[in-house]
């Protein structure tokens, strides 16, 4: 029987051929958690009565949500996890100086065909390299850490094909918002999205990571880019080894398919308070904004910072602007490339590797009545702070253009 990528990965992980709808136990290749969910995972393990880790090499821990700690309780949580790391001798531990977990996963660990579970919904980001990556709650992750196993219901596979080349200022965010706008946030519940790219180099890994990251916003069980030359090149360059490629059979069956012509995409924005309330930037231009946030595990990568730097070079922001590269590695790269200097000269505040403003934690909380434009993944009511704030989601070009004008602005007009 020909198999989709989903079926291929889950069949290997469960040790038998599986089909959509099957409920099956699977082995996991990687498990991960961060500070804010990690202390909860450890509490569950303590409750069960064991700190046993099934395979120390396969557990990744990174501090990002509470990094650097904004209060005493956050510091305490991180202390608890450092103790766990010491007790268990887990080698893959990233303290506050490394960056956001999902970025670290695709920079260093995730490979095509793997099963990855982590205590965070945006675990879907690792789908960028063709891994079946799912977020789970603390109890499920604790069970996976102890046993190396979890269970899944095999999702219905849905095929999306990306063709053509995106125009200037178009980014992975616009692809994700296009899908959300066309299908709405509930459509893919119980499905896995397998994305085929006709011209692999037209959709670089940065863009793929943004789309996969928002797979959870589509409520897809998984979102995977079918591994291709771009995947191979990315892993070989970033890590110095050639990944084993896992791809679906050419005659595999999908429940449905959908094509996007990237050359026809406009810059898109999700208006409050829903990720699928999608509009073209022209429809909402002119709305005054109090704060701009460029960063997060959704859009804090080099191409995002490059777009922002190109727009802000030699100019000054009119709106307070916060920029957070998704990892320390990316921060250093942006420093070398001059983007940090350009953005700082334009008046932006820059730090690295924290989730702070995206989850309404720290480093840029929305006050009552404020309007924010953010490159992060969610604009739910109260997400970035006050429930009376409004959050618009966009790619980095719209966000940077908005910073420049103090109101929502189409970057193509500048």
């Amino acid at each position, binding site marked *: 029987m020909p198999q989709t990528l989903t079926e291929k990965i889950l069949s290997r992980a469960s040790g038998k051929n599986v089909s959509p709808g099957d409920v099956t136990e699977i082995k996991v290749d990687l498990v991960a958690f961060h500070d804010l969910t990690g202390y*909860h995972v450890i509490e569950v393990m303590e409750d069960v009565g064991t700190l046993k880790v099934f395979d120390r090499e396969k557990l990744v821990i990174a501090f990002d949500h509470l990094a650097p700690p904004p209060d005493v*309780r956050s510091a305490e949580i991180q202390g608890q996890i450092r103790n766990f790391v010491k007790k268990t001798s887990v080698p893959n531990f990233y303290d506050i100086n490394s960056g956001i977990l999902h970025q670290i996963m695709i920079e260093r660990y995730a490979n095509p065909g793997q099963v990855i579970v982590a205590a965070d919904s945006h675990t879907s980001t690792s789908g960028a390299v063709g891994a079946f990556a799912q977020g789970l709650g603390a*109890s499920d992750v604790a069970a996976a850490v102890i046993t190396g196993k979890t269970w899944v219901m095999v999702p219905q596979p849905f095929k999306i094909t990306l063709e053509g080349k995106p125009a200037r200022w178009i980014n992975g965010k616009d692809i994700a918002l296009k899908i959300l706008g066309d299908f709405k946030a509930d459509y893919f519940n119980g499905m896995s999205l397998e994305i085929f790219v006709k011209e692999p180099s037209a959709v670089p890994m940065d863009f793929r990571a943004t789309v996969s990251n928002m797979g959870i916003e589509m*409520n897809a069980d998984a979102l995977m880019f079918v591994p291709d030359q771009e995947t191979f090149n990315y892993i070989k360059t970033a890590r110095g080894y050639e990944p084993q490629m896992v791809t679906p059979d050419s005659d595999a069956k999908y429940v449905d398919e959908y094509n996007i012509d990237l050359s026809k995409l406009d810059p898109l924005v999700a208006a409050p308070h829903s990720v699928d309330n999608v509009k073209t930037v022209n429809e909402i231009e002119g709305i005054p904004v109090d704060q701009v946030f460029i960063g997060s595990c959704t859009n804090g990568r080099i191409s995002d910072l490059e777009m922002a730097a190109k727009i802000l070079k030699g100019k000054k922001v009119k709106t307070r602007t916060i920029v957070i590269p998704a990892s320390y590695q990316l921060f250093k790269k942006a420093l070398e490339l001059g983007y940090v200097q350009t953005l700082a000269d334009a008046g932006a505040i820059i730090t690295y590797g924290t989730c702070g403003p995206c989850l309404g934690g720290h480093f840029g909380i929305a006050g009552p009545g404020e309007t924010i434009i953010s490159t992060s993944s969610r604009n739910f009511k109260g997400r970035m702070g006050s429930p009376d704030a409004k959050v618009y989601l966009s790619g980095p070009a719209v966000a940077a253009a908005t910073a420049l004008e103090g109101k929502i602005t189409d970057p193509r007009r500048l």
Partner: protein
Amino acid sequence: MIIEAKVLKFGDKIDTDIIIPAKYLKYTDPQYLAQHAMEPLDPEFYKKASSGVIIVAGKVFGMGSSREQAAMALKAAGVKAIIAESFARIFFRNAINNGLPVITLQNATKEINQGDLVRVNVETGEIVVNGSKVLKGKGISGMPLEILKTGGLITYLKKAS
């Protein structure tokens, strides 16, 4: 497993930032979490739920974050079960793992009204509204039912190990 309670009704896409905002996630004490459940949408929720309620809601209930505190907060606040048109995958698992029954029912928000008295059979998915109207939802079976019956994943894992 039969559960009976009055209905508190919500719409589509009730997300985890509504169910329990991020600022409360540094704690896992159920009673603390319960006091802040659904706070951005209805600060009175804790009081309303305290006598024991069944939530009825629309599509993808619990979408968003993996925060297990969302399920813990609702359960501790007095929610005995949730009937929704669909559930977000992670929330569904978190609810089961914390012993909170979740039943899927198409058109739930059309068929059931605020304040209705609902009796639900968790295993068969049969729902009786106000003692007369009978609806057929999707019950819980297999491993999720085993976990639910044991009282949650922690107890289940303790028994298994």
